Structure formats: structure tokens, C-alpha cells
């Protein structure tokens, strides 16, 4: 049953950057784009099991650090291969100075 989890502080992530967030047995990423929007997606690239938290955030996209697959952080859609499967995304909201994700 999904629940809202306090993932991090808004200041834990720089603008156009990403951090890793682990909860239970799963790993996620929290992305802050260039307009201070926050997103939560699965933490591993769908092409191969590479942690996206080492990747590059450009505007609201995340690029895999290994093979440069690019995903839209808002929708999880693949923009550039070699990945073919989209990332799962999770609802995200800001409460005070905390980032909450529903996982």
C-alpha cells in the first residue's frame, strides 16, 4: 500500500541535481530541476542496473551515467535510447521544507 514518506529536505538537492533515496528493498531518485520542481522515479536505469543518482540532470531530464539513456523525470518516458522501457514515477509534494514521496 503506497504511503507518503519523508524523503529529504528541499536543500539536500542542488538545482538541476539528483540524490539517491532508498526505502525498504527499493531504491529511488529524487530530482530537482532548474525550476525547483521535485520528482521521484525508480533509481535504476531500465536499460541496465545502473544507479541514476550518479547521472546528469538537465532541466527536467535525467541521463544515465553509463550509457546516456535520457528520461523525462516528470513522466518517466524514455527520450533517448538505449533504454526502451520507461521509468516508474511516484507522486511528490513539498510540505514546509521537506520533500515527501508516495511509494
Amino acid at each position, binding site marked *: 500500500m503506497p504511503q507518503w514518506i519523508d524523503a529529504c529536505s528541499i536543500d539536500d538537492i542542488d538545482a538541476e541535481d539528483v540524490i539517491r533515496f532508498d526505502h525498504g528493498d527499493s531504491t529511488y531518485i529524487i530530482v530537482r530541476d532548474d525550476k525547483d520542481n521535485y520528482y521521484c522515479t525508480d533509481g535504476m536505469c531500465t536499460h541496465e*542496473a545502473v544507479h541514476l543518482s550518479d547521472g546528469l540532470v538537465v532541466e527536467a531530464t535525467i541521463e544515465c*551515467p553509463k550509457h546516456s539513456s535520457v528520461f523525462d523525470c516528470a513522466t518517466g518516458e524514455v527520450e533517448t535510447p*538505449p533504454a526502451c522501457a520507461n521509468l516508474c514515477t511516484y507522486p511528490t509534494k513539498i510540505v514546509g521544507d521537506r520533500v515527501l514521496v508516495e511509494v
Partner: protein
Amino acid sequence: MTFRDYNLTGPANAQAIASGLVTEDWYRTPIDRKVMKDLMKRSDHPATRDTIVLFGLMAAFASAAVMIMPSWWSVPFWMAYGVLYGSAMDARWHECGHGTAFKTRWKNTVVYHIACFCMIRDPYCWKYSHARHHSDTVIVGRDPEVAIMRPVVILKMVLNLVGVLDFIDGMKRMVIHATGRMLDDEQDYVEPVFYSKTYRTSRIWLAIYACTGVAAIALQSWVPVLLIGLPRLYGCWHMMLVGWLQHGGLADNVLDHRMNCRTVYMNPISRFIYWDMNYHIEHHMFPLVPYYRLRDLHEVCKPDFPAPNRSIFAAYREMMPALWAQRMNPDFYLRRPLPKTAQPYHAGPYLDA
């Protein structure tokens, strides 16, 4: 001594998986996130400048060569044009394939497709081939881009120096793709959703080559094929000479790029042609860093890396005896010392660190 079967469809593939070599657990030098973010930042400027220079030089050399023909004085100009077509384009294929050359994505795509045509490499097959090379660098049975297989066959190296084997392989694959088929090894690493694009690309390319051939016959001139196609043969020598240094004589079946990659200091002309891929350990460990930041990344990583070779000549002086030793003992590899500041080698399941 271990016999090596590099065939991706042979038993070595499954053996590599079973022995834990197909993994994300590769060694990475710890670098502060803020530093890494800065190094990964892209700009259009360096690649735009370099691409204008590259195409400008190609146009200038080709124009001069055509005007001077049929005099033999045209040969140096053809050679210069050829090295840009057959070697510099390999570097552009590589960097734009990674998507790191330009900040603007469509620019990477355009230059990538032009470079793929010059190198006779299907854009989709080679994107996945190169992704596999980065995932499983010099893992026997997994890496489709092992340039020097053990034991080394000198004749093969000589033929590759003038592009013969790669040209034949590229043309063969293009013709097979044009008939609507993929080769067995490609089916191991290319996503099926891209097969139709591969077929379409190959048919377009075959049409271009056919027109080039027809033009040469109609004009009774070598010029069309000297401009398109043949430079892949007579111009690839620089690519091969610097490319062999990337992994030649070093370890295989390890999980540390400091053991299976080589960084070599090179002259500015080679670095322009090669687009800074001489910083090869750095590139494999951090593929998102664009070519124009690799020198900076090298400075950050120096305390953790083996010393780079000081020149192409010095690198060959190190590599050639190792390749010769591997003819007698395929398990031999160069194990270079690390500085005192470095973390120990992280070889993985086969070799002690």
C-alpha cells in the same frame, strides 16, 4: 593458459555471467558530487568549433586534391582528407554516440549519423554494441569491440591498419541488413525495436554507395570513390594506431578500468583527430564527462590512477612486448603500478588485486 573464445554467441558469454563478471560493481574513483557535476556539464561551443574546423578542413583538402589531380602532388591532400574521414570521424561517432559532444541533442544526432556513414557502422547496432563495450569492457564473450584479441595475429593488425577487415565487415553487415536480417551477434545486444531502422539505414547507404560507384564509372574518374567510401580504407590508420593503445596488452576479465584501459599523453593534432579519447581510463570510468573536460578529469583522478604513458611512442614501447608475450601466454597482461595515494586495484572474481 586460458584459451579465449570472444564469440558473443559461444559459451564464454554464459561463463562470464556465471562467474560474476557481468555486473555494475566496477571500481570508480571517489569524486565529490559537486566536482563531478561541473565536469559533466555540457556546452555547444567546443564541439561546434571543432566540427566547423573538421568539415572546413575536409572541404579544403578535398577541393585541393581534386584541383591538383591527376598530379601525384594531390596525394598528400587525399591523405589529409582521408585521415579526417576515416579516423576523425571515428572519434565523432564515438563522442556523439555518447551524446556528450554537444549540449543540444539534435546536433549530436546529426554528426553521429554522418560519422556512422563514414565509418560504415549502423547507427543503432553500434549504439548498442558500444553500450555493451562500456558495460562489459574487455570481458571475453561479452564485449563486441575487443580490438586486439589474444593471441594477437599480426597479419590481422596490418590489414586493419588499412581498414580492410573492418571495411569488408561493415559492407557485409550493411548488405545483410538491407535484406531485412540481423546477424546473430547483433541479436545478442541490439533491441529488436530498432531492427527496422537498421534495415532502412542500410538501404539508404547502399543507394549512396551505388550512386558513388555509378558516378565514378560515368565520369571515368576515381574522384567519387576517393571522396566517399575509399577514405574508410586509406584514412583509418590514425584511428587504429591510437585505438589499439586503449586496451592493448592490458588485463581482461577484470572489473577495474585502471587495469584494462590506458591513458596516453598525445600531441595536439592527434588529440584533435581523436577528440581527447587518449584519456581512456577517465572516459571509461566516467563516460558522461565530455571530451573537452577529460583533461580536467584526468587531473582530478591522477592520484588514483597508474601513470599515463608520456607519448604514443612510449605507449607502443610498453604495449608491443606485452602483445608478443601474449602470443606465448594469453594470460599475460601488463599490471602497472599505482601511486601510493591510490586505492588498490579491484580486479573482481578472477584475479587477485
